[in-house]
């Protein structure tokens, strides 16, 4: 990477981050989601401090918290990022930016990382806020370590995957239509039982992080009875569901990041053709 490319990437990353993190809606949407979370009884967030409801084990509790936060707040994350790349065209600033010496690919990666990181700030603030409160409340400082590990192997790869598609796909369809597809995909590809219909749930392409949850964090649900990855008897697409091991967990993360890179490269190619 030439130094000019690195500078362009760094500058657009910083600018996109600052622009996005100051948007009120980036904070309002996660805040309202947390309010809904707290209103609906029985969810782990509300029961985090109830010894009868939460697990005794700090690891199980903070990883379970991550699953809930990741499942729900990622919806708003993808929807909020969907207008970021098409925005340059809509505001007609794309030709001006294209006329600068900064390479479009560097600006795209900068926008991806900057806007993606800024939109993730409230999500991570919610997660680490609750994890820290739990650690103090129960006197279990290792909860914060587990929260960091979960964030690194589950939340960050999942959000990077979502952000790449949220940026690229609205180039080929209206952003609101992408939001509808994305929500449908999120439910179908993460939650639907594999023996009900062909789904990407529990496969290597699982942005909710089934393999890392199972093989790296040894998480099997709050009650310990759930499985989050691996083959399901009688299900289709089982060739995408190897047995969960640390190797397949890292492979799953690599597949998510590779698909994110493919989506970004596709978005870059679409923009280059239109320019």
């Amino acid at each position, binding site marked *: 990477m030439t130094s000019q490319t690195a500078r362009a990437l760094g500058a657009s990353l910083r600018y996109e981050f600052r622009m996005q993190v100051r948007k009120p809606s980036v904070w309002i949407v996660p805040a309202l989601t947390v309010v*809904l979370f707290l209103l609906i009884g029985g969810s782990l967030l509300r029961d985090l401090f109830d010894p009868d409801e939460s697990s005794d084990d700090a690891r199980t509790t903070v990883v379970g918290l991550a699953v809930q936060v990741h499942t729900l707040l990622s919806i*708003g994350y993808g*929807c*909020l990022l*969907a207008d970021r790349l098409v925005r340059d065209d809509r505001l007609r600033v794309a030709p001006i930016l294209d006329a600068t010496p900064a390479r479009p690919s560097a600006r795209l990666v900068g926008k991806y990382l900057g806007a993606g990181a800024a939109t993730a700030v409230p999500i991570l603030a919610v997660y680490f806020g609750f994890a820290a409160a739990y650690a103090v409340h129960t006197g279990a400082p290792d909860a914060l370590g587990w929260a960091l590990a979960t964030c690194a192997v589950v939340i960050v790869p999942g959000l990077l995957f979502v952000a790449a598609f949220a940026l690229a796909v609205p180039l080929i369809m209206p952003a*609101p*239509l992408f*939001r509808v597809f994305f929500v449908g995909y999120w439910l179908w590809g993460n939650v639907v039982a594999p023996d009900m219909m062909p789904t990407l749930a529990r496969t290597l392409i699982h942005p909710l992080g089934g393999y890392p949850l199972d093989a790296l964090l040894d998480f099997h649900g709050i009650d310990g009875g759930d499985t989050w990855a691996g083959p399901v008897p009688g299900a289709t697409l089982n060739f995408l569901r190897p047995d969960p091991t640390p190797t397949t967990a890292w492979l799953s993360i690599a597949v998510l990041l590779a698909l994110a890179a493919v989506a970004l490269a596709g978005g870059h190619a679409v923009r280059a053709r239109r320019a």
Partner: protein
Amino acid sequence: MRPLTLWRYEARRAGWAALLGPPVAVALGVSAALVNTMPGDATKARILLGALEMAVPLAAGVGCASLVGRDPAVELQLAAPTPYRVTLLRRLAVTLVWAAMVAGLTAAVLIATGWWARWPANHGPFAGQLTWAAPTVGLGAVGFVAGAVFRSPAAAGALVSTVWTFQQLFADLAQEHLPGRLLYLFATTRGPVPGDWTGNRLALLGAAATLVALALVVLARSERLIGEEDE
């Protein structure tokens, strides 16, 4: 301007997503029913009704969330004799009527082919149309008022999607108490208390009317609409 031309124009301004969303949602729902491998017609019928009760409202809700903040020169709209909020109300009507046409046609096909009756909690061919009408209008109103308050299709669409996902993932918890049951969007296909169905549908319609009225009050402050949307 002739009325038909006006409505055609409003349909264009409502955007492609508002027009493509409902048919795409129905197509995805029907595909899910076709590839479903669970035994029994009732499961398949439930997914087909789910396409109407879940997928169409999501598409309509996100469409309605994207109405405010689309006009590039909103000052021109604010200077026109027709109040801008009336224009937006027309686009809301276009979005919802289109979703209703798609859902109604799908429901007619399901009734004619007998799939409607194969879901035990179907509530008949006439009152049963509230299966899609109540959640579509309800989520549409949530999207419209969120769009009016945030002036950002991204934020409003995110909120509609989050509410929808919440009710999907926490179906039992959301219906634990009466207020939650009355405002639950998917009472036909996932409602545990069949006796609450009519009340639930009417409550959704009532809540939708209240939210649209609230949106109109917010939109009356036209100075809020001037300037770029919340970028």
